[in-house]
């Protein structure tokens, strides 16, 4: 059986895993990176549109270009790269972790002192949003459609409806149109688009693809291949309004209805999961509540820019290459309009000054203020314009004044001004 030993084991070679591995190696750690697919890069491989890297590189790169920058660093480093290798189980051992895996060479195990989960996320399916009707072919997630078109040169549709205005949905609307398919429309259950504004403009408006807000697909038809979908309007609570059903003929329903962090491996270690992010609970270094076990990128919370995914990998990789000191957590209490706040716990025993925090709001707020307090003392405050649930916010908070007596609260409030 194959046997490996390493300081740090990174699982997943998407942008989070790549940058975690690179940053750990640059600090002198030995790293093994495991990827279940045949090549490095994760989902970026199939994201051939541009717009990646504006924050990190100040450039608009395509997905493969963006990934390649990290891949180039990785393959020239000391990292051990295991491709087409699937981790089948992870257990905590006395001195760290033991991961069992299989690949075409056989089975094996890796003993690691530290582990970084960079397992990404998966797409929500039609059944998870309770679409009813038959079970035909032609109902697929945007990611699957993207795989067929961009990686295999196969067209899964000629005339389709897209449900969900998440970024992948918007990008696929444009991609499908460019490949000759008719996109009847993009339908969104919410009253506002879910994707970035720039994608609504560049992917829909520029191609004359209609966007229908407060609409959803309720039913699919067709015994074998999809023949039509039923679309209904919804009210402000996203409940279907009766008698608004409209039947639209199409051969495919492409779904972009949300992403869910992949936490199957996290669950093997029984790591606590945050109900709001559906990902693991982490501190400011993306270390989970289990010492020496990290969770980065979209496996922790779904980011809207790849740049921030890479950044989380970088932070975790760097931290993992140092020895782990005993941690002391304070758990910020969330108030007001916060949908979630990362880190869910702050390790106040570290010597950090500025830590990166991410949050999303529960609803659209024109003028808002985010405040981090220690008891009544304001640690950080910032005014923000146009806060939306769909756009992740990122702030740098100085925690050097916090200690183990701190009682931290975070509040996002609307400002009413005359």
């Amino acid at each position, binding site marked *: 059986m194959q046997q490996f030993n390493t300081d740090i084991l990174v699982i997943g070679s998407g942008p989070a895993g790549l940058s975690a591995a690179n940053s750990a190696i640059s600090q002198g750690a030995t790293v093994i990176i495991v990827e279940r697919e045949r090549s490095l890069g994760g989902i970026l491989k199939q994201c051939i549109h541009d717009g990646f890297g504006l924050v990190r590189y100040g450039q608009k790169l395509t997905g493969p270009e963006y990934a390649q920058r990290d891949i180039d660093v990785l393959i020239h480093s000391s990292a051990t790269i295991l491709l087409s290798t699937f981790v089948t189980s992870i257990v905590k051992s006395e001195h760290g972790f033991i991961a069992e895996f299989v690949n075409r060479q056989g089975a094996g195990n890796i003993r690691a002192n530290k582990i970084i989960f960079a397992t990404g996320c998966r797409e929500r399916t039609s059944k998870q949003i309770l679409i009813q009707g038959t079970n035909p072919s032609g109902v697929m997630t945007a990611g699957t459609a993207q795989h067929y078109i961009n990686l295999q*040169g196969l067209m899964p549709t000629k005339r389709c409806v897209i449900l969900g205005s998440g970024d992948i949905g918007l990008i696929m609307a444009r991609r499908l149109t460019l490949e000759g398919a008719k996109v009847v429309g993009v339908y969104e259950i919410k009253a506002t688009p879910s994707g970035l504004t720039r994608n609504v403009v560049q992917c829909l408006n520029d191609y004359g693809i209609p966007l229908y807000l407060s609409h959803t697909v309720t039913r699919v038809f067709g015994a*074998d291949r999809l023949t039509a979908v039923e679309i209904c309007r919804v009210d402000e609570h996203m409940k279907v309004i009766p008698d608004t059903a409209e039947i639209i003929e199409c051969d495919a329903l492409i779904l972009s209805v949300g992403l869910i962090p992949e936490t199957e491996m996290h669950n093997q270690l029984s790591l606590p999961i945050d109900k709001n992010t559906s990902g693991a609970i982490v501190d400011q270094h993306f270390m989970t509540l289990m010492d020496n076990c990290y969770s980065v990128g979209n496996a922790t919370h779904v980011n809207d820019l790849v740049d921030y995914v890479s950044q989380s990998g970088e932070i975790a990789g760097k931290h993992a290459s140092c020895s782990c000191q005993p941690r002391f957590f304070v758990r910020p209490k969330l108030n007001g309009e916060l949908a979630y706040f990362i880190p869910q716990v702050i390790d106040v025993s570290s010597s950090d000054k500025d830590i990166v925090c991410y949050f999303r709001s529960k609803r659209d707020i024109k003028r808002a203020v985010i405040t981090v307090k220690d008891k009544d003392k304001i640690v950080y405050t910032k005014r923000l314009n146009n806060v939306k649930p769909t756009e992740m916010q990122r702030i740098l908070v100085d925690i050097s004044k916090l200690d183990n007596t701190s009682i931290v609260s975070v509040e996002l409030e609307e400002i009413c001004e005359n």
Partner: protein
Amino acid sequence: MTRIDRIAKKINRVYPHIVVSEKDGCVRLTGEMDRWDDVLSAGKMAVSGHFFGVLNDIKLAGFTQPPIKRPVLDDDRYDGAVCDVLVIGGGVIGCSIARELTRYNIKVILVEKQSDVATMQSARNDGAIHVGIDLPNKTKKLHYLARSNCMYEQLSAQLDFPFTRHGQYVLSTSWWHLPIMLALKVKAMRQKITNLQFMGRRKLAGVVPNLSKNVKFGILMDKGGCVCPYGMTIAYADNAVQNGAKILLNTIVTGMDVTDGVIIGVHTNRGIIKPRVVVNAAGVYADVIAEYAQDRFYTIHPRRGTNLILDRQSKSHIINDAGSISMYLSRKLRQRVHSKGGGILQTVDDNVLVGPDSVETPYREDHSTTIESINAVMSKHALTSPTMSNRDIINYFTGVRSATYEEDFVIEYGKKTTNIVHVAGIQSPGLSAAPAIAIDVSKMAVVILTKYRIVLANNKFNPVRKGVTNISKLSIQERDELIRINPNYGEIVCRCEGISKGEILDALHLPLCVPTLDGIKRRVRAGMGRCQGAFCQPLIMDIIKEDRGLPYDRISKKGEDRVILSVNKE
């Protein structure tokens, strides 16, 4: 007053316009009604032990049954084919009968109109192996269930399909139910059906972690179990093929030539097949096939049921190593949740399954789901485990039970036509009862056949069928050895279920090869996890293409559809 007059009087008191007559030993109802519920209730009123069955030919006003779904195939490939026994229908009943028939030195053909076996009720049910303690004495249901229940250990070992016997629990919210349960215990002991053990809340909490506060007590019947229903059917079908039966998929029966009470030809979309004996195991269309055979003496009334599959991760808060858990409902509660049966099950694959509900419908083949059914199932089983939520759902499906008005199995020789055996009205516990039904029906077919030829045992019959090994259940050392022999077992394709390329290729090389995405999914679970194939579907397409030499635009999900509509040549 004759018997038929008495039935007519009873029905006409409620439904004066319905014509009640006697036809070939059956009670026949004709006329027209506005509500399906009335059609059903008239049919039920016509049930009588003195007649063969009910022919409910009452029309529902404004309703036309959609045409039976036909395969696209249309050729003469099997025209003139001769066989000893033709089994119509590739559900668990048809496939198990075909397998039992291969114990004899006879030629067996099974026709199935869908592109795989077990696509209807045999796939669309919960897989529970029932105990049947609630079934009335002297019913065929109880007879066959009792005989079958104890066969599963041996069968699952022979045919290599998963089976667990974790017991069947029935919970109660009222101490008033205690006498009923005690009566069941007496029956269980007297008829030696099962051990029946009373359980208090503390013991039950070990099985249902978030047990509803309303539950007072429960019973455990140790004979309750669970199979993968389509897995069992596929196993029977494979073993039948191994032993010489021919299974013709995409083949629909469209009519029959009957002369002097003997079927001499069976018309299909692939030509006329000439069997000596016909076994009618056509599920919801059994009465249609019976009509073709000029031997109709029962009516199928479809009854829909929806089941929900929950994420494996939700198991920890719902069910803990129990076969099935159901709630004994008072009549009042039953009316409130509009359902009678169903439960929470731990499937053989460790998912949680909840359902089914029970909705009468005139549509025989409508498997589309509705939000009403989903909500009904969820709210009903929240009575047992209140923490269950829609967030746990990963899939749901609807099946159509083929009930007769007598609500019992029809396992009988033809009444007028002499070379047919009817296996109809097979609804719950039909899956559980299939093994014993198959044994009896194969013998009945042989009895007819002996009028035409000498039937001997098939010396080469091999009862053992090997399915696809689930490598994720092997130890790491065993896996290592296996991969060294065949590296395909080390290439994981379906990440949710951990299924390798080797297993998918094994599925394509089973005796009954069904090279579709669903065919593979049903054989090795690739695509059955929480991503529902979003990641692995394109990879499985590649494997089918490579192994079967099919171009992308001819690969389908379930036989006659296309996943890819055009291939970019560049």
